């Protein structure tokens, strides 16, 4: 791997900075999923996690000379789009029946 990632402007960015940035976004998303009770926010947090991964792929595909990373990103974007479409559909259905988007209201499947 090169010492850094050259941007178009000529600035070289150290990889750990980018990776830390992505990890931070990923964990923000993860915490959002785990902690927030509003289901819309949870879906947004999931998107956040997915895009953190996308960012990692893209940023590392250059230095690794591997287009596979960028390929994967397209797939992930498509799947994520489909996922959120389905998820939002479910949210609408949930809101229609419960008049609520709070996950605490959908805990009926308990033992």
């Amino acid at each position: 791997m090169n010492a850094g990632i050259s941007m178009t402007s000529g600035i070289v960015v150290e990889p750990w900075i980018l990776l830390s940035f992505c990890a931070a976004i990923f964990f923000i998303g993860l915490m959002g999923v785990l902690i927030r009770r509003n289901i819309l926010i949870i879906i947004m947090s999931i998107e956040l996690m997915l895009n953190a991964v996308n960012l990692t792929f893209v940023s590392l595909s250059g230095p690794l000379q591997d287009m596979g990373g960028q390929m994967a990103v397209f797939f992930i974007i498509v799947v994520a789009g489909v996922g959120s479409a389905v998820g939002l559909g479910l949210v609408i259905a949930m809101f229609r029946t419960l008049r609520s988007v709070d996950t605490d209201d959908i805990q009926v499947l308990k033992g």
Partner: protein
Amino acid sequence: MLALIPLLPLLGFLINGLWYASVQLRGGKALSAQTSGLIATGTIGTSFLLGLVLFFQLGSLPEESRAIETTLFSWISVGTLNIPLAFRLDALNALFVLVITGIGSLIHIFTIGYMAHDEAPAKFFAYLNLFCAFMLVLVLGSSLPVLFLGWEGVGLCSYLLISYWYTDPDKASAGKKAFIVNRIGDLGFLLGMFLIFTTFGTLDFAALKEVVAQTTPSAHIVTIICVLLFVGCTGKSAQLPLFVWLPDAMAGPTPVSALIHAATMVTSGIYLVSRVSFLYTLSHDAMMLMAVVGGVTALFAATIAVAQNDIKKVLAYSTVSQLGLMFLACGVGSFGAGIFHVITHACFKGLMFLGAGSVIHGMHEEQDIMKMGGLRHHMPKTFLVFAAGWLAICGIPPFSGFFSKDEVLWHAYSSSHGGTFLWALGALTALLTAFYMTRLFVLVFLGHSRSKEHAHESSAVMVVPLQILAVLATTAGLIGIPHLSWLGHWLMPIVGHVHLREGVAESSEWVFMISSTIVAAGGIAAAFAVYSNLKTAEGLRARFKTIHTVLANKWYVDEFYEALFVKPIAAISDFLWKFFDVKIIDKIVLSFGTVTNQSGALARGIQTGSTQLYAFMMLVGFVSIVGYTLYGIFQ
């Protein structure tokens, strides 16, 4: 062609049975008695014709190689045991095949009329055909296991047909009784079969005969084998002590009583002992036991028949008694006479049962002979054919029963296994037989009508088979005229000669013929004297009240068995149920359930229903696994 004989009735069973099961039971149309009866009679009738063809083919073969064999497939093959499903027709079972299919066809035709108003004639005919198929497997089987297959099959059909009207609890339990009592006998049969295999190493009859002829088996083992097989016969052929099921079996429809419980199935015991007669002749003790059991059963059942009032019960006890005579004949070494009596008995007892069926049908299901009387005016045709059966069973010459019964009695006296005691048993039975049969005949057909019911003659479809049977019952004895016996000659290669005792002259047979005619005539005369005037009969009954009560209650055998076997077994079962089952086995099984329940109750706390908590748990798990792995890498 040989395999077709049992397969055709099986085909008839499949057609009628499948129609009943897949059409009628699903609300479809029921086959009429005519259609289903035609299918059933057609198949068994074709079997009869095939049987006739093969019979003559057999007759054209030289005497020493008189057997036709066919193998269908290898049935059981384990180690040295190799049992093909094979049939072998020889001089002995050819006769049985003709009796089963011939009498069977006539009874099938009769049934068309008798079951005309039944709800499911297809079911009835299917059972009848299945019975015929199994019975033919029984007699045609080339080895003991194949015979046993048929043996069990006819037991099953007997059960199904006795409890045909299963909505009546009495009839259903009569079927169960027949099945269970037969199972007791079957145990003896099975043990005997196992012992034969361990002793001789083969179960095929022909091979067995050769092995027995070549080796000299210990008389001890042979006696045990013969006694065990005879236990099987006492069950199937209703001998003491296992005869109790046969009188109860009369709960079934009358054609069933005629076909299964008089003409064919109950004679399979005689067939079995004749089939393995080469074993029995080696064991004097087993022969003695068979003769004594047969003779005692004959007399015992005849005494009961004297005091019964149900027309079918009289005939049933008469059947037990006649079967006893057959075993008496086999027991004194005269298997030929036993089989001769099987054939004539099938004709005249089949006739009498069907005649009784015709009477019952004409009297609107009345079976009590005290309520009949004077039927000769209302049912002249039935009267005439029944008279032929009556004279035949009483043993009046030249009717068929005379010849066969005379041969049995003569050999009971003259054979090297026989003696005066056995002859006396037989002669006394013959006397009683003539007496109770005449009693039945007088009470049913002669005198004045004692019923308000208006009896009517049965239709032609029922009367014609009766007339054919009446001709047979009259003439069947001609195949076994003493000294000119075609039957004796025909069976000789299989069952051998009867060895006469020392000091018994062949010519004295004539004395016995005359004396047995006198005995029969005496019985008939006595019964006429008593029953032509019912007041005399009442007076006699009052005088011998104790004896009459004991006889009418069948010597209390059923009550005795009830107290000795049924009640204790029921008590033990009750104890095992309430103590062992409920308190021990159920406890153990239920405790498994309790443990599962309680551990489940503990574990269910984890399931909160909150998806996010699950996700958190996943995270924790993931982190721990990754952490553990990394720890391992950096270690």
